[in-house]
């Protein structure tokens, strides 16, 4: 059987892709407002918890972990991995179109390669068949 994904499961993979880079970006922005933290100023870490950017970043990263584990419960690790890598593409595109940063030819080439990788994997089955496990399952059902 070829394992294909329902639209709801594609949404979970989209959440895996988007929440990690957005969470990281929000944490970076929040910590930039807090300032440098070193061993003598560890209290700043407590202060950081009251920064809305840091809070939203933490919520998004919890969302990433939840959606990542949900995806791993019905798909192979090697199927889910390129989705996490697609986060690099999201960050690069956000920096180009929202922050108006310049993207070099190297970065555009990198984006194309990661998009190709996601395309290769998305066209294949999402889960490896284990015939012996299937036989055990059907035996248990009888």
């Amino acid at each position: 059987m070829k394992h294909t994904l329902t639209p709801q499961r594609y949404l979970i993979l989209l959440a895996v892709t988007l929440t990690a880079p957005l969470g990281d970006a929000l944490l970076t922005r929040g910590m930039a407002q807090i300032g440098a933290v070193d061993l003598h100023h560890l209290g700043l870490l407590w202060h950081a918890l009251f920064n809305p950017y840091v809070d939203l970043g933490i919520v998004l990263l919890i969302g990433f972990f939840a959606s990542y584990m949900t995806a791993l419960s019905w798909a192979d690790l090697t199927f889910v991995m390129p989705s996490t890598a697609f986060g690099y593409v999201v960050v690069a595109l956000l920096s180009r179109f929202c922050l108006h940063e310049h993207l070099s030819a190297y970065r555009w080439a990198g984006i194309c390669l990661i998009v190709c990788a996601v395309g290769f994997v998305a066209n294949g089955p999402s889960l490896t068949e284990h015939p012996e496990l299937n036989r055990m399952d059907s035996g248990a059902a009888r």
Partner: protein
Amino acid sequence: MTAVHTSGLRAWGCIMVVASLAIAGECLIAAAMRGVGDLDDIRAESGLPGAIKAVLSSPLFLIGATCMALNFFAMLFTLSTVDLSLAAPASASLTYVGNAAAAKVFLHENVDRRRWLAVLCVCAGVYLISK
């Protein structure tokens, strides 16, 4: 701020430790989730608390999460001695390749030519984006 320059061997040693912890953590979490079963089904049957309980009661998940936490601190240590421009793409690429190999050996996933090609594309892509 530029990290203190360290010897190549030590830098790559740090990067290998970071990648190894990430590979161990991700494979253990993937094995745990396979053991737990489809979280969508569990959530439909027992709600969100039931799904959280099923995940947290898996020893493999707890060991995997510990590895991921150690990976975080190992990365912090590595970034204090190795430049970000080397540490981030090198550890990410090694993690992708290592995960594919570990998934084939330990999780018995069907890592066919298509998936190996995807892993290599991701590694090259991560390297180019970090340039």
